């Protein structure tokens, strides 16, 4: 994109409120000039790219903070942290892949999980009292999907290696979050055009709340899985150190 359009886009993003009278008007001959349309489109696209970058940057910062909070371990060397950060920048820069951050960063450390066990613990045991009937239905449904995915791929989830189960679980959660986030965005956009307090607005609001809850549920599942992975990695390292001794 031409830098003059980028500059104009940045100016547009910073424009201040200003009132001005229209002192003269003239009809253009037929249509607006091609040059004006090209400028309009180029600046518009440059502006949207700025906006997308801002959103990507915010998402990046948030995910990086989450990753650091979840994976902070004193025994990880500065070198390893830097390598993970570089890897993150290289592999997870676009919005489409940011959602996969946790899975791949954790894989970077070669950590394993048992997603099915953790899923059951989260959905059935640990959190059972907090689950209302809807959430329980969601959990059962989600678990069913997970099993169906494994069966479709001819993977015996009960006996598959941890690596296979990790991969399937992370892929399932990530794709689930992708779909939910698309639905959430659509509902949020729709809300802008609905009459506040109208029945359609309230219905849409309920949809937004449901989707948000589902995203949180999937996020929580990933978090639990992440914690478990950290523990397992620690145990694995201890076992290796034990063997060496």
């Amino acid at each position: 994109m031409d830098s003059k359009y980028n500059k104009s886009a940045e100016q547009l993003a910073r424009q201040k409120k200003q009132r001005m009278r229209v002192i003269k008007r003239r009809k253009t001959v037929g249509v607006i000039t091609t040059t004006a349309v090209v400028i309009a489109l180029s600046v518009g696209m440059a502006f949207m790219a700025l906006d997308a970058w801002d959103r990507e940057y915010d998402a990046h910062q948030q995910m990086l903070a989450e990753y650091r909070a979840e994976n902070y371990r004193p025994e990880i060397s500065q070198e390893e942290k830097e390598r993970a950060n570089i890897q993150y920048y290289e592999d997870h820069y676009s919005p489409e892949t940011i959602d996969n951050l946790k899975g791949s960063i954790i894989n970077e450390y070669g950590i394993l999980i048992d997603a099915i066990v953790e899923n059951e613990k989260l959905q059935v045991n640990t959190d059972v009292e907090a689950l209302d009937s809807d959430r329980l239905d969601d959990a059962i449904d989600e678990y069913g999907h997970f099993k169906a995915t494994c069966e479709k791929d001819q993977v015996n989830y009960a006996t598959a290696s941890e690596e296979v189960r990790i991969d399937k679980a992370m892929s399932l959660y990530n794709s689930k979050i992708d779909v939910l986030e698309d639905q959430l965005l659509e509902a949020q956009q729709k809300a802008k055009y609905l009459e506040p307090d109208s029945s359609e607005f309230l219905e849409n609001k309920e949809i937004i709340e449901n989707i948000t809850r589902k995203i949180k549920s999937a996020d929580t599942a990933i978090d639990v899985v992440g914690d478990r992975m950290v523990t397992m990695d620690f145990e694995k390292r201890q076992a290796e150190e034990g063997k060496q001794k």
Partner: protein
Amino acid sequence: MERITKDEAITLENNKEYYVVEIVEQDEKRYLYLVKEEEADVIVAEEIIEGEEIIIETLDDIEKIKEIVKIVTERLNKN
């Protein structure tokens, strides 16, 4: 007072002339997407009728600007 239309060029009190490339109508408001050719300058403003005068008020709400730019860019891309 005749409202501003898409096929117009308007001169503001700072003596700058802008082409009206698109108009977005929302919530009983009219937003103009204005282009000044020489400087490749774009502004997004609301059209306000005050008596016999037409005033344009540039927006400073970034979310609204984003919304208007998105709509306009989609329209222009279709053409």
